[in-house]
């Protein structure tokens, strides 16, 4: 346990070396423990952001697909499930992405699927983000038995494979909407975020400005929200992006397994339909290629954007 008495005669400037606890907080797929120093002012952020191709490209791709998800459905008269045309037709000027074995418009399926992906990503990632931040801040700032209990809870949820628990839950309750699916994903994918926030909070709360705030009569909640959280804003942003991408991937797996809503279209469900209808053998690639590419574009865009952000906030990572 951390002994908060630091009597060192001269403390060398610079962050303390990460303890074992801190190094353990690795984002799945992200790898490196998140650590970020606040940038000074917004203009400095803008300066580096616009010069970082990873950030610009990632953000651009994500925004482009977001716009497509918004306006896409307006570009077509067809709806995803409607048997509107000829079957198994390759992409053409009429059916931009071709049609399925049932004569459904793949483009319509794709753009509605994008909507579902963004919904699940933002909502699921958002819920996980809120839970992770709440648990992390509380455990890190309070310490003591509160921390012990929350830490145990975090570790338990952390080692249970998310998909396994989702399978069993989704098998019993019928998932009717993407909101339900997103909530389930959010409720199970927060632990690494909580650990990351906890470790950061631990180190930030030993900073003296927290003591100054306490000596100014500030309460715990105020200190967390106005002193600690703002110092982690870059960190919290990156965490959200990773959770966002992760939620999309988990959602796609669930939908592919047929555990998602069956009454509205998603990218995972497209793959499921294509697979079950032997699109592979029929060679109707336009059916199963777009949903995967869509996911890669959004999630990959988010990840690349995140790395860009990381380089913006951590000068050490910038390539010289």
């Amino acid at each position, binding site marked *: 346990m951390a002994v908060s008495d630091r009597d060192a*005669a*001269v403390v*060398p400037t610079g962050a303390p070396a990460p303890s074992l606890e801190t190094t353990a907080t690795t984002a799945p797929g992200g790898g490196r423990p998140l650590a970020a120093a606040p940038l000074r002012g917004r203009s400095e952020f803008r300066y580096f952001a616009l010069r970082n191709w990873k950030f610009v490209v990632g953000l651009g791709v994500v925004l482009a697909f977001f716009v497509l998800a918004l306006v896409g459905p307006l570009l077509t008269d067809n709806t995803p499930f409607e048997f509107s045309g000829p079957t198994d037709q390759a992409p053409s000027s009429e059916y931009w992405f071709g049609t399925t074995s049932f004569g459904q418009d793949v483009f319509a399926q794709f753009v509605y699927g994008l909507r579902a992906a963004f919904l699940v990503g933002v909502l699921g990632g958002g819920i996980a983000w809120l839970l992770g931040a709440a648990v992390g801040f509380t455990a890190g700032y309070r310490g003591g038995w509160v921390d012990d209990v929350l830490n145990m809870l975090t570790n338990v949820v952390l080692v249970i494979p998310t998909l396994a628990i989702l399978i069993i839950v989704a098998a019993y309750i019928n998932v009717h909407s993407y909101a339900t699916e997103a909530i389930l994903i959010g409720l199970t994918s927060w632990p690494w975020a909580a650990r990351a926030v906890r470790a950061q909070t631990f180190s930030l709360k030993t900073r003296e400005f927290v003591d100054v705030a306490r000596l100014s009569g500030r309460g715990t909640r105020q200190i967390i929200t106005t002193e600690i959280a703002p110092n982690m804003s870059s960190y919290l942003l990156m965490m959200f992006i990773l959770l966002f991408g992760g939620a999309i991937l988990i959602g796609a797996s669930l939908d592919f397994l047929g555990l998602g809503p069956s009454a509205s279209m998603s990218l995972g469900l497209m793959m499921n339909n294509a697979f079950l209808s032997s699109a592979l053998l029929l060679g109707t690639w336009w059916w199963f290629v777009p949903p995967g590419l869509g996911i890669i574009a959004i999630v990959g865009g988010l990840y690349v954007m995140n790395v860009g952000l990381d380089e913006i906030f951590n000068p050490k990572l910038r390539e*010289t």
Partner: protein
Amino acid sequence: MSLKVDGLTVYYQSLRGDVKAVDGATFEIADGEIMGLAGESGCGKSTLGKSLVRMDARMRYVDGRVELDGKELPVWDDRKMNPYRFKHVSIIPQYALSALNPTRKIGTMATELLASRDIPLNGVVDEFKRRLKIVGLPEDVLERFPIELSGGMKQRVVMVLSSLLDPSLLIADEVTSALDVSTQRAVSELLVEFRDRGFVKSMIVITHDLSVLYQIADTILVMYAGKLAEKAPAETVVHAPAHPYTRMLISSLPEVGVRYAEKRLIGIPGRPPSLLEPPTGCRFKTRCPLAFEKCAEEPPFVEVAPGQAAACWKATA
């Protein structure tokens, strides 16, 4: 002359431009000399010390020559510098407490390092053990991981390792700052012992603490805002400083025995200039009570008394 530095200029690259951290440093160190390098934070003393061994990624060599034992040191070329490091010029870094690989035993790390430099191990390892004993460490620290050692112990291990190959020049960068008072004295005295035993020929001890230098250094070089201010024997710097900055600095230091109620010390008003765009002329002029018109011109760093050099028009006149 062991070390000859002539017009060394090294900049630090930052987001806002070059920080002119060391500007035209010219000085010499004699064989067997322990030179203290003092100054406030940001005056360039650490940059000067590091640039003699290894420039880090953000440091940029601009100008100047460095000669060690009559041979030129290629300080501007990281790769060409490698053969000199450790063997001829070595450093005890500021971060000595975290300088050891946390997942390697001290002994393993040392032998791997020596092997990588193609240094035959047989004699050196015994010498390593012998010197560990001299600094008061048991032989079995070789079998331990850095986490098993206290701060003072790690500091000593790094001291012994850095000087193991009897370099001509050893740079000790803030070696006592992170230590407690009692350890501080022991470590400082070890530096002198290293010189006395001939483990190193000459030494640069970088610190912000003039009183430590007074205890162990033969000469003291004071830097201010990237420039050399004064170099003289330690006694002279403390008792008869020539540069107004040195004088004011010395008289602002409290000592055991000096008390507020009896003798009120005063500091130097103002703060050092930014080294991004340092002022022309003397860099101390805005804080100097003696400043006059001529200070708009840069004062040369010249001998003002035998063995005493300073960069001040008033001291020269």
